[in-house]
């Protein structure tokens, strides 16, 4: 603009200052700058959206498998369960469960193998069964079908996260020498040698290919059983161990299918035997994949299949009740006093500056304060939601005061003057007119402060809420943990199944945060008055 004013207008007929080549170049440069800025802005938004999408898609794809779980339906014989409640309390329900699992595979006899077989169902099955019997005591003495959760590794196997397998290959002309134990297998062509080489078998002397635990596993399904191939010899022969007894002798006419588990046995936390058992149970229809209710109803656990978020959700809820109960009245009262009643002097402006400073203090500092004041001085219990709530209340207080003052200030002075003009006292003016109008703004600020508090872990570290707590808290003084802490702890556990749990818990937490923010938005939209 300045160049227009600074230069005198050109005479008529000559190229003017606004139309000559230099002016056109300037104009182009200005438009160019605008276009570049627009592009930069748009690409910044695009990049941010891309990162958000990347983050969310990783969490969702990782977390989704944790929302479903595989259960095994077992006919459990509860005839040994005593009818007397006192005697029943000491009864070990793991025994009947283990027997029921064993009964599914009666030909598994070795001690180690029985132990392995028991391991395909969760170690918490007994506890789940106990609950079912306590809920319905008529079950004692009967044989009932019970759904027990699978062990976390078995569950991951069915979800396809533990072992990869290639497409099964039908073979013809296969014979197997026996129905159990070590057997010899013959094939009609040399496909088997090719497959064994492809699986990474070790070449031994005499043209023998050894399938060790470092190679992919070849499982031969024939005659209603399964043979694991251990060695492929010359002349289209092979040796194997029967993992599941064959019902019928296998002759060349019988159909046979060769399965390849491409992940070597040494590299996965599930053995070929377990895979054979699990696939058999699946084929029998004993495995059901359903919504994972345990995840939403139980507390923390060291067994991934038994771990749930409910304990942490309840803990978060109790903590936030204390936080809002303390921070809201104190925060609103402080905001009203500072905005409407306090004289404007050095002291109040000092207080104001310090409230703004407090809002910027790192949250761990509030944790240290909580440790020193609430635990050490007042002797309150460790790990309790009441202490966590108080610490978080201290942390959210400045946010609520600042939001409260801003929305009180946004109420126009004419409202105050009109109220005072018709004879209202100052308290009446504030509580009858100003505060109701400012309330939506205050509520929005409070909810955002709460959402902030919901996501905090650092202040709770010092007061013992970062802990492994199984029992679901029943009150404000019982040990509890909160959602972000649960996420942090699951991220630290070595078992792979906890990685899915971590992402699933993040999704639950995000859901809560979105819900709280949505409430804030609705409050603002519905009740906000513009002047």
């Amino acid at each position, binding site marked *: 603009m300045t160049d227009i004013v600074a230069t005198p207008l050109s005479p008529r007929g000559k190229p003017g200052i606004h139309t000559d080549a230099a002016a056109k170049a300037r104009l182009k440069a200005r438009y160019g700058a605008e276009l570049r800025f627009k592009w930069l802005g748009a690409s910044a938004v695009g990049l941010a959206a891309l990162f958000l999408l990347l983050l969310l898609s990783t969490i969702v794809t990782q977390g989704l498998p944790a929302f479903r779980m595989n259960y095994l339906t077992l006919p459990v014989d509860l005839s040994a369960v005593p009818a007397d409640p006192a005697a029943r309390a000491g009864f070990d329900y793991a025994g009947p469960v283990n027997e029921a699992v064993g009964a599914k595979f009666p030909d598994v006899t070795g001690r180690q193998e029985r132990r392995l077989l028991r391991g395909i169902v969760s170690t918490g099955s007994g506890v789940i069964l106990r609950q079912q019997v306590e809920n319905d005591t008529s079950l004692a003495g009967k044989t009932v079908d019970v759904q027990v959760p699978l062990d976390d590794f078995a569950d991951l196997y069915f979800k396809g996260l533990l072992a990869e397998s290639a497409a099964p290959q039908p073979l013809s002309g296969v014979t197997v020498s026996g129905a159990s134990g070590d057997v010899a297998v013959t094939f009609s062509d040399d496909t088997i040698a090719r497959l064994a080489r492809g699986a990474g078998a070790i070449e031994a002397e005499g043209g023998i290919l050894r399938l060790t635990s470092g190679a992919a596993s070849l499982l031969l399904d024939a005659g209603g059983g399964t043979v694991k191939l251990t060695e492929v010899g010359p002349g289209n022969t092979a040796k194997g161990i029967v993992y599941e007894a064959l019902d019928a002798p296998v002759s060349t006419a019988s159909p046979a299918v060769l399965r390849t588990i491409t992940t070597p046995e040494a590299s996965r*936390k599930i053995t070929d035997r377990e895979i054979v058992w699990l696939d058999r149970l699946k084929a029998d229809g004993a495995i059901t994949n359903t919504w994972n209710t345990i995840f939403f109803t139980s507390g923390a656990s060291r067994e991934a299949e038994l771990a749930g978020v409910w304990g942490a959700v309840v803990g978060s809820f109790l903590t936030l009740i*204390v936080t809002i109960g303390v921070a809201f009245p104190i925060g609103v009262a402080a905001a009203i006093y500072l905005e409407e009643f306090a004289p404007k002097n050095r002291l109040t402006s000092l207080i104001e500056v310090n409230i703004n400073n407090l809002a910027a203090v790192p949250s761990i500092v509030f944790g240290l304060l909580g440790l020193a004041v609430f635990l050490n001085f007042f002797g309150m219990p460790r790990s309790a939601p009441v202490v966590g709530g108080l610490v978080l209340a201290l942390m959210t207080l400045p946010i609520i005061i600042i939001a409260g003052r801003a929305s009180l200030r946004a109420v126009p002075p004419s409202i105050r003057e009109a109220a005072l003009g018709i004879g209202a006292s100052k308290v009446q003016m504030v509580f009858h007119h100003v505060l109701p109008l400012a309330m939506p703004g205050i509520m929005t600020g409070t909810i955002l402060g709460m959402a902030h508090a919901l996501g905090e872990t650092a202040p709770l570290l010092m007061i013992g809420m970062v802990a492994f*707590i*199984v029992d679901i808290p029943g009150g404000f003084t019982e040990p509890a943990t909160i959602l972000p802490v649960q996420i942090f702890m699951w991220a*630290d556990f*070595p078992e792979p199944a906890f990685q899915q749990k971590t992402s699933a818990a993040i999704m639950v937490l995000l859901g809560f945060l979105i819900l709280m923010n949505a409430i804030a938005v609705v409050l603002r939209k519905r009740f906000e008055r513009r002047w």
Partner: protein
Amino acid sequence: MNKLLLTASAASLALAASMGVAAARDQIQIVGSSTVFPFTTAVAEKLGQGGQFKTPVVESTGTGGGMKLFCAGVGENTPDFTNASRAMKAKELETCKAAGVTPVEIKVGFDGIVLANSKAGAVVDLTKDQIFKALAKNVAVDGKVVANPYMTWADVDATLPATKIEVLGPPPTSGTRDAFVELVMDAACQAEVKAANEKGCGEIREDGAFIEAGENDNLIVQKLEANKDAFGIFGFSFLDQNADKLQGHKVDGVEPTFENIASGDYGVSRSLYIYAKKEHVGVIPGMAEFIAEYTNDAAWGPEGYLADKGLIPLPDADRAKVAEEAKALKPFGS
């Protein structure tokens, strides 16, 4: 509406405050090492499943932090057990005794510290000397102590691959780091380095070859998967659970396997402990039962559930002796 809200919040505050003065604690509190945490939590859960007692609360505060809380005194506001990835130091025992606390030591098992990389990476066989040379801040070259000049593994020893030295490990606050320094760096320390600086042995290089990866071992596992040339230092249980992605390397010719660590052949292993507060036994319900559960073969034995979680059991004779002493609550240091 506003008055109602104020009254309600005041009431809830009063309620919360009145409940703050809790009745006698009926739940065991445990603090201490993050290495022992996965095992103690499993035992705690088992005790809770029994239905007789509430499940103990287990916090992961680190060995040092746990000792401080544990030795603070006797009473409901102090923890009943502390986990430790090393034995209690004489100074800590003094603090404990001064506060009237009698600790009972229970050695629960071993943990191996492994050097591992991605399965896609090279397989190496290292000696402690080579590890020292690769990771120490100062090393001796031709009799002189200089800042570590080795950039690739081949610089350290010609038989090793010519890849850049890149090791992800725990930060100095970690018990795993303490143990690694003690078992490898101090053990293989060069005489010249020791002579130049008494503490020089434990100093790990800070020029980017050693990367502090935080306390979260899962993060190290993920980073190793992404970078096949990098090595990681962490506890055996993480190698055990991630056997499909990672491979452990021999140290001084011994492979880090369950059997080798249990037999003591693998050189980089340490003992794990829990300490019980004798004064609380009989006051806080379930303490004796918790010790009994921990020292039961179904838990800490070679086939117990703790072995499934990666704890390496003590030899049979030691287990029997420790269990007996724990049952008798033999005070530590007497």
